[in-house]
C-alpha cells in the first residue's frame, strides 16, 4: 500500500517536473524571440554607424547632392523634410485634434458618427502608397498644386490624421467625468469645458500622438515618390522676400523639393558603393531623428502615467 503510494507520488512529481520544464522552456523561448528582435535593431544601428559615421561631418549637412559621392550632402534633403513636416504639422494637428474633440465630446450616437468612426479605423489600415495615389490624382493634377512641398505636406498630413485622432481621443477619454461635471456646474459652455479643461489636461497625451505621427511622416517614402518628387535637387526652396525675382511669402510651398528618405532611396539604388556609404550616413541621421522622437513620446507617456492621479 505504502509502496504504491510512494510510486504514485513519484509519478506525480515527474509530471509536475515535466510541466515545470515546459514553463522554463517557454520562458527561454520568449527571451530568445525578444532578443532576436532587439538584436536586429542593434545590428541595423551598428551597420549604419560603421558605414555612415565616417561620412558625417558639418559639410555633409551643408552640401547639396552631387555626382561625386565624396562631396555629396543632405542640405536640400533635410531642409525639404523640415518644410514638409511644417506643412504636415500645421494641417494634421488642428484638424486631428478638432476631429477627436468632436467625436469624443460633441458627437451624438447616430449612424453618421458611426460612419466617421469606422472610416477612421479603416483609414489607419490603408497602405501609405495609396495615399500617394490619392495625392497624385487629386492634389497634383485635379487641384493643380503640382509636385510641391504643399502637396507632400498635405498628403503626409492625411496619412497621420488617424494616429493623431486616435491618441487625442484616448487622452480625452482618460480625463474623468468629474472634471467636466464640475465645469458645467459652474455654468461653463461646452466649448469652455473643452478649451479650458479638457485640452490643457489632455496635452501630454495629445503631444505623444502628434510626435508619433510626425516621426512616422518624416520617414515615409512611398507616398512622396508617388507624387513624383524629384530625387536630384541642388537648390533650396525660395526664402520669402529674398532673391531675384523677390519671392512671395508662400512661394516655398510650391517649390520642387526632396526629402531625407528619398535621398536615401536614391543613394541606395546606385551601384557605386560610395553612394551607399552616403545612404548609411543619411539613414543614421534619419533613424536617430525618428527614434529620438519615438523615445520622447514614450518618455512623455511614461511621465504622464506616473504624474497624473485623478
Amino acid at each position, binding site marked *: 500500500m505504502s509502496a504504491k503510494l510512494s510510486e504514485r507520488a513519484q509519478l506525480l512529481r515527474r509530471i509536475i517536473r515535466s510541466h515545470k520544464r515546459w514553463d522554463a522552456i517557454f520562458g527561454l523561448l520568449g527571451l530568445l524571440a525578444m532578443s532576436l528582435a532587439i538584436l536586429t535593431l542593434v545590428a541595423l544601428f551598428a551597420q549604419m554607424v560603421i558605414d555612415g559615421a565616417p561620412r558625417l561631418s558639418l559639410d555633409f549637412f551643408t552640401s547639396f547632392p552631387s555626382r561625386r559621392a565624396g562631396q555629396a550632402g543632405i542640405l536640400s534633403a533635410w531642409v525639404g523634410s523640415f518644410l514638409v513636416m511644417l506643412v504636415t504639422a500645421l494641417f494634421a494637428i488642428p484638424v486631428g485634434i478638432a476631429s477627436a474633440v468632436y467625436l469624443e465630446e460633441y458627437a451624438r450616437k447616430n449612424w453618421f458618427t458611426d460612419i466617421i468612426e469606422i472610416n477612421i479605423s479603416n483609414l489607419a489600415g490603408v497602405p501609405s502608397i495609396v495615399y500617394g495615389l490619392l495625392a497624385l490624382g487629386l492634389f497634383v493634377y485635379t487641384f493643380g498644386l503640382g509636385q510641391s512641398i504643399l502637396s507632400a505636406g498635405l498628403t503626409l498630413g492625411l496619412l497621420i490624421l488617424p494616429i493623431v485622432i486616435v491618441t487625442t481621443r484616448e487622452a480625452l477619454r482618460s480625463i474623468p467625468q468629474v472634471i467636466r461635471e464640475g465645469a458645467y456646474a459652474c455654468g461653463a459652455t461646452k466649448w469652455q469645458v473643452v478649451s479650458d479643461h479638457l485640452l490643457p489636461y489632455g496635452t501630454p497625451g495629445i503631444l505623444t500622438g502628434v510626435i508619433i505621427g510626425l516621426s512616422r511622416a518624416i520617414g515615409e517614402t512611398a507616398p512622396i515618390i508617388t507624387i*513624383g518628387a524629384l530625387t536630384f535637387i541642388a537648390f533650396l526652396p525660395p526664402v520669402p522676400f529674398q532673391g531675384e525675382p523677390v519671392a512671395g511669402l508662400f512661394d516655398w510651398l510650391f517649390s520642387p523639393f526632396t526629402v531625407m528618405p528619398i535621398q536615401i532611396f536614391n543613394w541606395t539604388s546606385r551601384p557605386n558603393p560610395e553612394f551607399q556609404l552616403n545612404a548609411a550616413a543619411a539613414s543614421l541621421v534619419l533613424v536617430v531623428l525618428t527614434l529620438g522622437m519615438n523615445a520622447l513620446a514614450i518618455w512623455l507617456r511614461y511621465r504622464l502615467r506616473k504624474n497624473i492621479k485623478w
Partner: protein
Amino acid sequence: MSSTLTTPLPVMEQRLTGAARLAELAQIKAARKRKDKLIELILLLAACVSVFTTLGIVYVLVKESLVFFTHVPLWDFLTDSQWTPLFEDTHFGIAVLLAGTLSSSGVALLVAIPLGTIIAIYLSEFANHTVREVLKPILELLSGVPTIIYGYFALLFITPMIQKIYPDLPTFNILSAGLVMGIMIIPYVSSLSEDAMRAVPMSLREGAYAMGSTRFQTAMRVVVPASISGIASAYILGISRAVGETMILAVAAGMQPNLTLNPLEPAATVTSFIVQVALGDLPHGSIGYQTIFAAGLTLLIITLLFNLLGHWMRRRFREAY
C-alpha cells in the same frame, strides 16, 4: 475662460434691474449658444476631413481604373500571366504582381506571427512588471524605424549574410526583404495580442492556477483561447501591413515582374510596381499612368477585405467579460 467672464462685467456696472437685466442676460446666453453652435460646426467639418479622404481615395482610384479597364478587359487583368505594361507588347496580368506580394507577405508572416505571438505571451504571462516596462517600448521602436532604412538593411546586411550560407542567392530577392519585413511587423502583432491577453480577467487565470496549472498551461489553455479574437485581429493587422509595405521591397526585392512564389528569386509586388512607375517619367493620362491606379485599387480592395475580416472576427469570436 477669460473672454466670457469679462464680457458680462460692464453690464453689471450699469446696474440694470428687473426685466432689462433679464433681457440682457438672455442676450448674452443666446450669443454664447450661437458661438457654441458655430464651434461645433467647425469641429464637425474637421471630423469630415477623414470621410472626404476616403471618398477622395475611392474617387481617384475608381476614376482612373475605369479608364484603364476600357483599354484592358477585366478578364485579361485577372488571368494574363505576364505583366509588361511598359513594353511594346503590353500585357496586364495582375497575378504576376500578386504572386510577389503573396510570397513576400508569406515570408514576413512566417517570421512575425510566431515571434510576435511568443513575445506577446511572454510579456503578458511570464515577464515581471519591470521587464515588461523596459522591453515593450524598445520593441515598439522596431515599428518606428523608417521602412526605407529597413530596405537598406535588407539589401546590404541580410542579403550578404544569407549569401554566405547560400551563395546562389541573387542580390535582389524576396527572402531577405520578407525577413526584414517580418521583424518590422513583430510589434504590430505582439502589442495588440498582448493587449488582448491582458484584458482577460485575473479570475480566469487564478482559477487555472488553483486547479494546479503551470504558467504555460494557463497561457495556452486559458488566456490564449479567451483572447483569440484580439489575437486574430492582431494577425490581420500584420497581414495588411505586410501587403501594403512598399519601400523594403522596392529597395531589396528588385522590381522585375516575375510570376513565381519562390522567395529566392527577385520579384515585383503591387506596391513596388507603383514606385517603379512613379520613378519614371510617365505622362499624365497615358495607359502606364493609369495602371498604377488599377494596381492601387487592387491593393486597396485586398486591404479592405482584410480589415472587414478583422471586424467580423472581433465581433464573431469576442468573449465578453
